[in-house]
Structure formats: structure tokens, C-alpha cells
């Protein structure tokens, strides 16, 4: 939407908006991504055993890691937005609940939270099912993938709420007042005036969260999910070659994080605007 509007403006106007220059050059750090990908390629070609075998073995783990990261990230954006709005809400109950949520989540290690959701939460559900006599709750079975995503969204959503809160609060008060004075209600003003500006402000920290999440997703190897890290562990215990296995796993993570960082950087540059 933003790009199309920019295309309508004249070239001279574009010059003044950083990031919207007509010929945005490719960010030079892409070569680092290419370099690491190149190392992986060279290793797999020159020594297919074990490197290419490792890649084939952990391949589905890469998919699991990617799914957990992307799905959790999208969901936590919604949680973060609602949490952020809750944190600045004048409604005391909403404010209290969201503040409590943020404070509690930030006080517990992520690994412990993931383990809790996977091992304790299903039992809690089953107990509730038994007490209330609702049979499908009593028969509840843990789904590792769903609970892992749930755990990440719950935890990262709290951090994301703080990012959204700070972003919204960084927009000058006059913007909201101007919107309200035109007759827009609170939600219309948020949606059309405040959030579009806040999102540009929070893009860098939100991008960092994505990369942090990608790395933290390796923690799910502790809760029976066959992600990249867990597949690496399995390969190593079958073949006893820790150096090759963990080097390759590290390189694959590195390619994914470097690549994500470049994408984040690209989006940031495309959406920057002057105040």
C-alpha cells in the first residue's frame, strides 16, 4: 500500500524520504549470507560424507524450526499489539491483567515455560476435565508442536507487548488529539493514525525478536520436537561425529539468522519515513 502511494509521487519528492529512493541499492551485508551458504555448499560437495548426509538427515528439522518460528512470530504480533494496547489502557482491569501477564512471563526462564506447557499444562487440562466431567478435556493429549508454539507466543508476546507499548507511546500526543478532534473514535485513531506510525518505530526491535526467536526455537529440542537441534543430536548419537554435526548445524542456523537479518533490514529501509 505504502509503496504504491510512493510510486505516485514524483521523483523529486522521493529523494527526500530516506529508504524510498527510486534505486535502493542492495544492502552490502548480503555477501555474508552468500559466504556462509557457500561454505555449506563447498563442505557438502567436497566431503559429502558426512556433511551432505547431515544435511539430508536434519532437513525435516529445518522445516520444523522454520514453522515454529514463523507461526509463533505471526501470532505473537497480535498478542503483542493487544498487550501493548492493554498496557496503555485507562481501563484499570485491562491494565492490571496485561501488566501482571508481562511481569510474570518476564520472570520465568523460557526453557522452564516451554517445559511447563508441554509437561504440566496437559495434566492441568486433564484434571479440569475430570473434575468437571467434560470427557474431551479429560482425554486431552499434548501436541508437542501446538504447545511449543503456544509457549513461544505466550512468552514472546509479553516482550512484544512492551515493544508495542513503547512504540505507541513514542508517537506524539498531538497525533491522537488531531485524529480525535476530527471525530474519529479511539480505535479508528489507533488503527489509521497511531499504529501505522508506531509500527515503523518498532520494526527494528520486532525484527530483532524474530531473530532471537529463531535461535530460541532450538529450546524445543527439550520437549520432544524434532527440530533442527534435536535432529542434530540424533545424528550425532548414531554416528559419533560431534565436530562435523554441530558445525553443520551451527552453519545452518547462521545462514537462517543472517538471511532473516537482511530481510528485516530491507523492510526497515523500505518503510522508513521522516517525522
Amino acid at each position, binding site marked *: 500500500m505504502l509503496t504504491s502511494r510512493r510510486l505516485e509521487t514524483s521523483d523529486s519528492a522521493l529523494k527526500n524520504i530516506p529508504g524510498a529512493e527510486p534505486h535502493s541499492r542492495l544492502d552490502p551485508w548480503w555477501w555474508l549470507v552468500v559466504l556462509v551458504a557457500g561454505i555449506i555448499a563447498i563442505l557438502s560437495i567436497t566431503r559429502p560424507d558426512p556433511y551432505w548426509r547431515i544435511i539430508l538427515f536434519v532437513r525435516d528439522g529445518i522445516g520444523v524450526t522454520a514453522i515454529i518460528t514463523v507461526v509463533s512470530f505471526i501470532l505473537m504480533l497480535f498478542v503483542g499489539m493487544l498487550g501493548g494496547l492493554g498496557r496503555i489502557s485507562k481501563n484499570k482491569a485491562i491494565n492490571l491483567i496485561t501488566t501482571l501477564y508481562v511481569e510474570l512471563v518476564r520472570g520465568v526462564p523460557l526453557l522452564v515455560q516451554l517445559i511447563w506447557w508441554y509437561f504440566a499444562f496437559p495434566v492441568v487440562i486433564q484434571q479440569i476435565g475430570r473434575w468437571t466431567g467434560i470427557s474431551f478435556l479429560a482425554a486431552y493429549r499434548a501436541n508437542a508442536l501446538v504447545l511449543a508454539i503456544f509457549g513461544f507466543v505466550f512468552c514472546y508476546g509479553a516482550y512484544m507487548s512492551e515493544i508495542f507499548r513503547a512504540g505507541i507511546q513514542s508517537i506524539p500526543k*498531538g497525533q491522537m488529539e488531531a485524529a480525535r478532534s476530527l471525530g474519529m473514535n479511539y480505535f479508528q485513531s489507533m488503527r489509521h493514525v497511531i499504529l501505522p506510525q508506531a509500527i515503523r518505530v518498532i520494526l527494528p526491535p520486532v525484527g530483532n525478536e524474530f531473530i532471537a526467536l529463531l535461535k530460541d526455537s532450538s529450546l524445543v529440542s527439550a520437549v520432544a520436537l524434532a527440530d533442527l537441534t534435536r535432529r542434530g543430536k540424533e545424528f550425532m548419537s548414531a554416528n559419533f561425529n560431534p565436530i562435523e554435526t554441530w558445525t553443520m548445524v551451527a552453519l545452518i542456523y547462521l545462514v537462517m539468522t543472517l538471511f532473516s537479518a537482511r530481510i528485516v533490514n530491507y523492510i526497515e529501509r523500505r518503510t522508513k519515513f521522516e517525522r
Partner: protein
Amino acid sequence: MNGNNEPIIHIENIHKRFGKVHALRGVSLRIQKGEVVVIVGPSGSGKSTLLRCINRLEEYNSGKIVVDGIPLDSAQNINAVRQEIGMVFQSFNLFSHMTVMDNLVLAQKIIRKRSKDEAHKVALDLLKKVGIPEKINAYPSQISGGQQQRVAIARALAMNPRIMLFDEPTSALDPEMIKEVLDVMMALAKEGMTMVVVSHEMGFARAAANRIIFMDEGQIIEEAPPDQLFSNPRHERTKRFLSKVLDH
């Protein structure tokens, strides 16, 4: 329109406290349709607060405000009243992520439910009226303060308000840009817009105002037509204030 002499803005004995600060102490004011009222007074006297109470950007603690027959007492009424009142701020407050055109179109579409074409036409006509149709695709950061303020006035006018409020619209501007904004306001006054203006531009007040209101410490001290107030203020406080602002 209304046969009786019901004022378009009717403020009755409002009080506003910010914690310990008693910003408005029993202000009453009636403004007739088509009147131009300029409010003056020292810093902190409550001018902005009074203005912001009229469209309920600020809540007041007691008293009553009725705008165009609608009492400011329910959320529904407040949004209805805000649609009738345009407001122009000292710091312009243009939406910085939108072009000039989108600034003018947004509320027309959402609140007035106008089609894209219709809203664009209204916007373009108003930009011509304030003298900057060529800036239609610029972003606020790309135009001067005076131009931004004229866009802000156009944005408010696009909603077809019956009343315009101005809170020190020229005090953030460089001297050479003040006139272009005052000219737009002057034209608006001539067209018969009801205007409440907080400003220390005494030239504008003299030329445009039907009435000048002098406020101090949260109260209206004195009100009179400009000639009378400037040449013959009745209160000592008004005299002292005027001698300061009229000197230069």
C-alpha cells in the same frame, strides 16, 4: 437558522482541575453563530484548557457545555460534536506518515463516509483555497511550517465544521510565515465561520474579532469588542497585560 438567540456554544460555569492546579475557575461564555472570538491572557491562564474543553479533548470537573444544541455528556454526543468542530493546533499535528492529500481525505472517508473521488475533490478545492494545491503529494516533513498549518486548517475544514477552534496557530511559526496563515483565517472569518481563537496576534484580533476575551488565572476577567478593549480596558490586570503585548 434557529430563530431564538440560542448561542452555538454555550459554556456554563465550568471548573477544571489538574490535580492541585485549578485551571478553570467557573468560566461561562456564550458564543453566537458567526462570531469570531479571540481569547488572550498570560501563559497558564487556562486559554488552551478552555478551548480543549469545548470539543472535550479535556474533560471538565463540573459545569455544562452545549454545542449547537448537543450537550457534551455522552461518548456518542462527544463524537457527534467533534464532527461539528474543527481544531487547529499550535504544533500543526499533521499525520506524519501520510501525504497532504491523505491527511485531508482520511476522516472524510471514515466519518463522513464520502467516496474516494468526492473526498479528493473536497481536498483539492480546500488546498486551492489555502493556496497550496501543488503540495498535494508532499509529506508533512517536506513542507514549511506555514504550509503545514494551512494544510491543518484545510484538513479541519474538509469535515465541514460549523465551528473552528484555533490554539495559538501561529506561535510556532517563523515571522515570515505568520501572515500566510492569518490571511487564511481572515478569509474564513469573512465567510461567516464561527471561530474561537487563542492568539496574541493583536492585528488579527483587531481586524477579525467581534469580541476579545481576556483570561487570567482560570477566569474570564473582561470581554469587549476589540476597539473598546484595546483603547479602554476596565480592569487593571487587562491593562497590564495589554501594555505588554501591544508594546512591540
